[in-house]
């Protein structure tokens, strides 16, 4: 039963952003087709189109030679296209059989009554055919993650899937689990199933895929047989932009060490990370989503608890057990999600900006100096070019860029020693982006230490004096000067060689 699915000229826009531009991809029975690209390259959009979750603006889809429109996810399943998502959505206390046949249980004479005998029987047959060795009566929560994944796969096959789309299937598996899965994928391929394999792990792609499609910024930048290419080539195609490291200012005086962290560890997220930050320096932290960058910073700042680690500020040990401690020591964070973490939507600009410095504005009896508060807020609004009717305007009404400026303004009131920005220009227009970059560089040039976490490589390149690359909770590389390039960052974010020996390595 040969199947082939071809997507041609697929284009998809979200508002002003082009997520996919004239992308072609074809999937055949018995072929494992790898799909790679950076965050934002368009992989998930393409996957969603294949699985019927969204529809392309332009383009054709052909199934077995016949043109087809995939109306919705259920229709895709009927057509034999199944998604194995990254987040396994299983109900913990159901049994394997119940999970697999959830929604399509075999029923008895009285409609609505599940035929449990048949349920388990059917399940056993399915699992045998798929060569999956799991007891149909076992409860999902008692299974290992690998086994749970197999249950999700079995469920796909219970609906007669011919095309399987696996999205980052190994993201939560340990080495043995990965091995087992990859072996299983090969077995499925030999049974004639068509598989699309989306992953950041280039080594897995090379192990199990027959062909590879590479996306970059919504474009198709490469399609080749695995046997005819290598890792370098793939990474180059993933990243290949030519970006001059156009920094708006040169390396200013970088002073002595202002912050030093040793051996920061937080279960699962960060393992034994150490680094230094100098006055006047902008340290970029790059890495894939999930590499642990935000978690590392939150552990350092005491927002989340850490298991190990020491922090030194200007050479002296600092006791940071809560975010308030961190602020007192002069470390501040502009968080990743501006609405969820950075702003109080029910309040105005002024009230948001003044929140961290209310102590300074308090007079006798806890009374707030409203005049001073307004003055400070207006001053900051001018300095940052925040466009609003007045400082009383509700932040809810501001554009994304202006909202982000309000979040920044909050912390500019405090003469912090270290400013940490987590994804400072995510989802913001180009003009505001460069304004914010200027502000960040300004802070560094005035002698503060600055850390910028970003998933946008051009941003990292434009701002950083040095770049920390993280990968799965460890420090993969520290890049300096000429070593800082998109290719190097990407490589270390995805593969890297060994972890940096964080105990012995000397900081430049």
């Amino acid at each position, binding site marked *: 039963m040969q199947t082939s699915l071809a997507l041609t000229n697929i284009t998809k826009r979200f508002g002003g952003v082009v997520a996919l531009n004239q992308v072609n991809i074809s999937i055949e029975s018995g072929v494992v087709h790898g799909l790679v690209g950076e965050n934002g390259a368009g992989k998930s959009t393409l996957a969603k189109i294949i699985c019927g979750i969204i529809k392309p603006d332009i383009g054709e889809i052909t199934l077995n030679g016949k043109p087809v429109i995939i109306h919705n996810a259920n229709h895709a399943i009927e057509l034999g296209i199944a998604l194995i998502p990254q987040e396994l959505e299983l109900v913990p206390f159901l049994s394997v059989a119940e999970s697999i046949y959830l929604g399509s249980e075999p029923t008895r004479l009285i409609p609505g009554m599940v035929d449990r005998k048949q349920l388990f029987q059917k399940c056993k047959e399915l699992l045998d055919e798929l060569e999956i060795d799991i007891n149909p009566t076992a409860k999902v929560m008692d299974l290992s993650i690998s086994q749970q994944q197999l249950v999700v796969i079995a469920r796909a096959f219970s609906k007669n899937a011919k095309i399987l789309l696996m999205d980052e299937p190994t993201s939560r598996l340990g080495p043995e689990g990965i091995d087992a899965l990859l072996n299983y994928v090969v077995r499925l391929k030999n049974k004639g199933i068509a598989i699309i394999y989306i992953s950041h792990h280039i080594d897995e792609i090379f192990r199990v895929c027959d062909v590879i499609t590479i996306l970059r910024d919504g474009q198709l930048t490469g399609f080749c047989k695995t046997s005819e290419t290598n890792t370098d080539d793939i990474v180059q195609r993933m990243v290949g932009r030519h970006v001059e490291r156009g920094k708006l200012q040169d390396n200013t005086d970088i002073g002595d060490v202002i912050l030093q962290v040793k051996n920061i560890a937080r279960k699962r997220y960060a393992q034994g990370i150490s680094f230094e930050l100098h006055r006047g320096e902008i340290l970029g932290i790059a890495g894939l989503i999930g590499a642990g960058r935000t978690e590392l910073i939150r552990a350092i700042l005491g*927002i989340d608890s850490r298991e190990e680690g020491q922090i030194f500020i200007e050479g002296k040990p600092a006791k940071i057990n809560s*975010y*308030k401690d961190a*602020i007192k020591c002069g470390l501040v*964070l502009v*968080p990743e999600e501006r609405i*969820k*973490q*950075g*702003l*109080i*939507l*029910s*309040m105005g600009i002024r*009230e*948001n900006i*003044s*929140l*961290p410095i*209310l*102590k300074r*504005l*308090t007079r006798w*009896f*806890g*009374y*707030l100096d*409203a005049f001073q508060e307004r003055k400070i807020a207006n001053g900051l609004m001018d300095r940052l070019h925040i466009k609003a009717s007045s400082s009383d305007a509700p932040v*809810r009404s501001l554009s994304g860029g202006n909202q982000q400026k309000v979040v920044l303004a*909050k912390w500019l009131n405090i003469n912090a020693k270290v400013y940490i920005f987590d994804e400072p220009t995510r989802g913001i227009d180009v003009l505001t982006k460069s304004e914010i970059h200027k502000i960040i560089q300004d802070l560094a040039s005035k002698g503060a230490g600055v850390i910028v976490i970003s998933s946008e490589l051009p941003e990292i390149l434009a701002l950083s004096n040095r770049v920390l690359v993280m990968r799965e909770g460890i420090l993969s590389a520290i890049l300096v000067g000429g070593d800082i390039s998109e290719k190097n960052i990407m490589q270390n974010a995805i593969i890297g060689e060994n972890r940096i020996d964080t105990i012995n390595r000397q900081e430049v």
Partner: protein
Amino acid sequence: MSLKSVGFKSFSEKRSSRISSILRRYGTLMFFILMIAFFGLTSRYFFTISNALTILDQIAVLAILATGLTVVMITGRIDLSIGYAVSALGVLAANALLITHSITLAVLTVILGGILIGAVNGFTISFLGIPDFIGTLAMGFLVEGVNQAFTRGYPVSNLPQRFYIFGQGKFIGIPISVFITLGILLITWFLLGRTRFGRYVYAIGGNEEAAVLSGVSVRPNILISYILCGVGAAVTGLVLTSRIGAAYPTAGDGMLLDTIATVFLGATAFRNGEANLWGTLLGVLIIGTMTNGLTLLDVPYYFQLMAKGLIIVVAVTITSIERRRAG
């Protein structure tokens, strides 16, 4: 491609969305005005000063308690112990009065009692991490138990006449209870609107995660808000006992639901579905005026209850729709 698809609102669309936003902000107030107009037209006695004073006197107790509860509810939490606390604190006030023969000491004792109850509530919820619903409910039972054990169900009476001033006295024709209410309102308005504490309370209620990431200490502020609520219950118990002339062990028990309803009602007014002080005041006025007006129209009690229930359902529905719309 029409202008509409690009997102340009036509003139009439702009006008109707402005109307709906006015309705959203001042709908409850408009409802109140309409209600007053209705009662004014249907009952001769309604629009008299004496009736107005009666209304204010009757709602004073509810107003004080609701003001205290509002502070807690702005932070997004609740206090289910207030009804029992009012009863118990009323008994405490009466007993303190009988023992010390000093009104001043009685007032001090009851306020301290309120602080204590509030502090225990606040501590278990913010520092021990017990969910507010369970923690305050349990506290309520505890307080009621102690109260019942102490009084064996008997009211505490034979209170000295001079004590009645709080609940029954008048000054320049206006009931003292109204003055007390105004005082509490003023203090709370100042705390919420003009102090650092008030700002923190609104921040915690608006977005707790963002508040923490702006350097706000959540726990101490929650503790203080519960203490203030406890003090509110204390003053309520004092005025209530003074009004009745004796401390009945169950006097305040039924106030919990009315008070919560009032604050919810108030949340629909002025602030997009979030608890706020003026809204609570409006809520109290609505409930009080509604009861008074319906009574003047000889509407039977059970019907008044139904009306109250209906109003509250409508209020809470509007609140949750507004909340969702505001994101």
